């Protein structure tokens, strides 16, 4: 029999009236904590009245079975047990029975009780268990055991509840603590993974995302399990350490108020902070009553600040409970402890400082994040605390300039750079070093496609490039190969970090604003002009490739126009990767295989176009931005300037900065006294040799020969000549035997050797023979098949030949010599090396004309013969 209809009617009226009162009071106070406490009391009152009516007072139909009441208790669990009943949350209830007989005896009243609650529109989340069942941990239902940690007596057999609370649960937790923590960690990670492992969503689910209310509870549960395990009993009061609890109080107040607000607004258990909800919450200053006027973006920043605090605590607690980890993981962790250095120690995957005071030295702080980015480790709570303590002193005189850029670039290049950046950002160190990033800190920009805040989008883009190296997907592997080929990948990472900073500037074009901000950031980092130009190019063009995809990418004119905007293959490659990473970081579904294929197709077409159109010549009297800059640098050398530049391929101007061109001009000026001008510099990755001289047969082959004779490995090279026959060759090489690195005196000898061989004063063949004798043959790790391809259609004045072959000592010298032997003049050489593959493109003429078909065949035969059998 149902409860008396008068009681139900009374309860319904009371529920509805009181719920409306709680809502009204919340609308005035905005106090979520008070609202959930009141709601808990209200529902508890209703449950107890119904319990009394249906279960305790028996009711006519219960008859003799009611004598088993002593073996049945009503227990609040989960959120309800904690006293946190949000306006539309489910009510977690446990029907606790002493044994199966009691369960059977109370079957009917439990059903009626539940039904009446449903009729009152109270959503139950009930569980029926015997005491023995509560004592069993089911790894497939971690949530149930965890919900018991918040159990609270409501009605029925108090002694039965005491047995559950005082004996069963503590023993269960002690016995299963390892499995429980492991299970909790697992469900938490799964939940985080569902939300992209980040809290920085544009429309976050306040309860479920990392840093949400659920994570706060996870923190409490982890601490509680640890405390029960240690004390063999329930702890007095909160098991969260006092500083952690204090730190999270404000976050909890905010999140509770925001969740109450969402429930009242949506009229259901919907915890999504939609854009409309953000507007309304900001207008009502939910959880931020003391703040001044707030925009939705300001309010979201407050939200992200609190969520960040919760996420850090959970992450630390998950890391700090070593019992949680499997034997295998422990092995890995102890291996990691061997990573300990003079500055840092590594325990259980967490970084500790060897000397707590060491952070007074900003370099140690920067090294710490480099270390983290390199090894993929996390900071311990004490290390984070020390960093926070060190920040005020650092803020007075933050590191800047080339030294900061050096540390930052080394960090950006490490495989876990994004994690290190996130940690720096979370601790407010990143914005201290680069205040320009404050503009995009936790910034929500409303966009139909983007799912994450602008800062997180930038970190994700960097992360997606680093992950290419481990990926098994076909497209990722192709993009991964491109990434490995980059000369200066750190510039690409810096561009990704800064590319959307302009979104923090209201109104206008975000690309232009990003350029201005990036310039300021690079002033701070003292980035050299050539590198700065590359980063600015990437930021300025970061939407170009996506725009080109909206055109017909199989149309030659589209490809040509796009490739011309890129200018050099290196820029094209970097922009291709930036576009890939930028799209991938929009949301997890944004980069479909279809899009990845389109981006790659356009890349291939543009790359081929660039390599086949390098002979378009410069006309020095044409107006163009680069030429204008050169004219401004060389106002007094007007005619020389024209004479020098006239006839160089366009590629020459694209590959060299204005300052480099000026230097080449100066070298060309000196040819009257020294007919072979050589300059040698040490770059970041390799040595750069620049040769300026007058063209002559076998020039390029001879130059390549000198380098081979010195044991140098040519990685890249460009050879260009102007209309007057002045040649500018730049060769980038690595010093295989560290000859130059270890012997400063060898620099002069090496340069002199280039000069004397080119002047015919030294015997190159003898030098090569000596080198060959001293070198043992090396075995190639990867076999590259030789391919020779002629292209007579791409250039009106020259014939292109591309030679792909196994890279090996003297290769370039042999190819270039072979071409010269076959009476080919090398007008342009574009030399590239990728891993063990040499990719050399030559623009050839013979007697000032293109090669005939017969001549091409003859050259091919000669090249095949030369490269055969190796």
């Amino acid at each position: 029999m149902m409860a008396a209809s008068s009681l139900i009617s009374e309860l319904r009226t009371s529920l509805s009236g009181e719920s409306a009162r709680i809502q009204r009071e919340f609308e005035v106070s905005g106090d979520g904590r008070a609202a959930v406490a009141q709601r808990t009391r209200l529902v508890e009152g209703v449950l107890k009245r119904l319990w009394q009516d249906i279960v305790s007072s028996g009711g006519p139909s219960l008859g003799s079975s009611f004598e088993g009441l002593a073996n049945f208790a009503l227990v609040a669990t989960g959120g309800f047990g904690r006293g946190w009943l949000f306006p539309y949350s489910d009510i977690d209830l446990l029907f606790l029975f002493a044994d199966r007989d009691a369960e059977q005896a109370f079957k009917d009243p439990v059903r009626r009780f539940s039904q009446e609650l449903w009729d009152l529109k109270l959503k139950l989340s009930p569980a029926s268990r015997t005491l023995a069942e509560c004592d069993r941990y089911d790894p497939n239902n971690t949530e149930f055991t965890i919900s018991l940690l918040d159990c609270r007596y409501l009605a029925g057999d108090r002694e039965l509840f005491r047995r559950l609370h005082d004996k069963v649960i503590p023993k269960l937790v002690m016995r299963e603590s390892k499995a429980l923590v492991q299970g909790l960690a697992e469900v938490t990670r799964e939940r985080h993974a569902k939300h992209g492992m980040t809290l920085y969503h544009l429309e976050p689910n306040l309860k479920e995302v990392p840093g949400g209310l659920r994570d706060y509870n996870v923190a409490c549960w982890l601490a509680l399990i640890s405390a029960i395990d240690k004390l063999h009993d329930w702890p007095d009061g909160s098991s969260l350490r006092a500083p952690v609890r204090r730190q999270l109080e404000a976050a909890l107040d905010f999140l509770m108020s925001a969740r109450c607000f969402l429930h009242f607004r949506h009229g259901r258990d919907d915890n999504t902070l939609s854009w409309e909800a953000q507007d309304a919450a900001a207008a009502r200053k939910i959880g931020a009553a003391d703040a001044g006027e707030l925009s939705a973006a300001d309010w979201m920043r407050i939200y992200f600040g609190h969520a960040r605090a919760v996420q850090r605590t959970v992450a630390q607690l998950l890391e700090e409970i070593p019992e949680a980890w499997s034997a295998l993981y422990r092995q890995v962790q102890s291996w990691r402890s061997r990573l300990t250095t003079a500055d840092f120690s590594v325990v259980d995957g967490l970084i500790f400082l060897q000397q707590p005071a060491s952070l007074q030295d900003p370099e140690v702080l920067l090294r710490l994040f480099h270390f983290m980015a390199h090894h993929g480790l996390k900071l311990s709570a004490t290390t984070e605390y020390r960093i926070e303590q060190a920040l005020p002193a650092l803020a007075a005189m933050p590191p800047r300039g080339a030294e900061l850029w050096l540390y930052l670039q080394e960090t950006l290049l490490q495989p876990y750079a994004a994690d290190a950046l996130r940690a720096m950002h979370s601790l407010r160190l990143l914005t201290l070093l680069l205040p320009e990033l404050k503009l995009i800190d936790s910034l929500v920009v409303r966009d139909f496609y983007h799912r994450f805040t602008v800062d997180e989008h930038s970190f994700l883009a960097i992360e997606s490039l680093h992950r290419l190296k481990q990926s098994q997907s076909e497209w990722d592997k192709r993009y991964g190969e491109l990434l490995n080929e980059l000369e200066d990948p750190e510039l690409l990472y810096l561009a990704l970090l800064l590319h959307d900073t302009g979104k923090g500037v209201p109104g206008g074009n975000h690309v232009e604003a990003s350029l201005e901000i990036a310039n300021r950031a690079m002033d701070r980092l003292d980035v050299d002009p050539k590198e700065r130009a590359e980063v600015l190019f990437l930021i300025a063009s970061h939407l170009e490739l996506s725009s080109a995809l909206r055109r017909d990418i199989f149309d030659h004119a589209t490809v040509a126009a796009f490739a011309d905007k890129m200018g050099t293959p290196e820029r094209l490659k970097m922009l291709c990767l930036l576009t890939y990473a930028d799209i991938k970081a929009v949301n997890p579904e944004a980069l479909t295989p279809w899009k990845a294929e389109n981006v790659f197709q356009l890349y291939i077409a543009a790359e081929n176009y660039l390599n086949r159109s390098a002979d378009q010549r410069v006309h020095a009297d044409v107006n163009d931005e680069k030429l204008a800059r050169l004219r401004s640098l060389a106002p007094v050398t007007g005619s020389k300037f024209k004479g020098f530049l006239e006839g160089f391929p366009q590629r020459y101007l694209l590959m060299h900065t204005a300052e480099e061109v000026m230097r080449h001009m100066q070298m060309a000026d000196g040819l009257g006294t020294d007919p072979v001008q050589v300059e040698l510099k040490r770059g970041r990755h390799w040595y750069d040799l620049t040769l300026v001289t007058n063209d002559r047969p076998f020039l390029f082959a001879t130059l390549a020969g000198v380098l081979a004779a010195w044991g140098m490995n040519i990685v890249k090279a460009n050879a260009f000549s102007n209309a007057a026959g002045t040649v500018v060759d730049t060769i980038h090489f690595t010093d295989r035997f560290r000859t130059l690195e270890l012997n400063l005196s060898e620099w002069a000898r090496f340069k002199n050797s280039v000069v004397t061989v080119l002047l015919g004063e030294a015997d190159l063949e003898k030098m090569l023979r000596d080198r060959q004798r001293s070198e043992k043959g090396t075995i190639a790790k990867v076999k590259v098949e030789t391919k020779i391809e002629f292209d007579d259609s791409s250039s009106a004045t020259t014939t292109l030949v591309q030679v792909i072959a196994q890279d090996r000592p003297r290769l370039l010298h042999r190819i270039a010599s072979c071409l010269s032997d076959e009476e080919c003049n090398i007008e342009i050489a574009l030399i590239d090396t990728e891993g063990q593959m040499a990719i050399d493109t030559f623009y050839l003429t013979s007697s000032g004309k293109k090669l005939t078909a017969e001549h091409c065949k003859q050259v091919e035969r000669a090249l095949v013969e030369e490269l055969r059998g190796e």
Partner: protein
Amino acid sequence: MTKIEAVIQNSKLDAVKTALHEVGVEGMTVIEVRGHGQQKGHTEVYRGREYSVDLIPKTKLEMVLADAMVEKAVQAILGAARTGKIGDGKIFLSRVDEAIRIRNDERGEGAL
């Protein structure tokens, strides 16, 4: 009611969408597809490796319209997607028996 399926060049999507909006077509489904008709694709050589592009990336639009709208929509697609070259794509029309709006069970053209 008629279902229109149009396979067009990716570059023509914006123009076709605008043209359809202009004649009053408000809803459509856009799908990223790969395929070929007479335009059989081609082979691109990159770093000595051949990349065969035999299935060309295209864009497919789908919409179901009241019969009175169909010819206008077809003309809009033709006008916006045509370049006169091989590879412009195709339009397919087929009869649709019923349309049902899930939200309120509305049926027929009113559900479109």
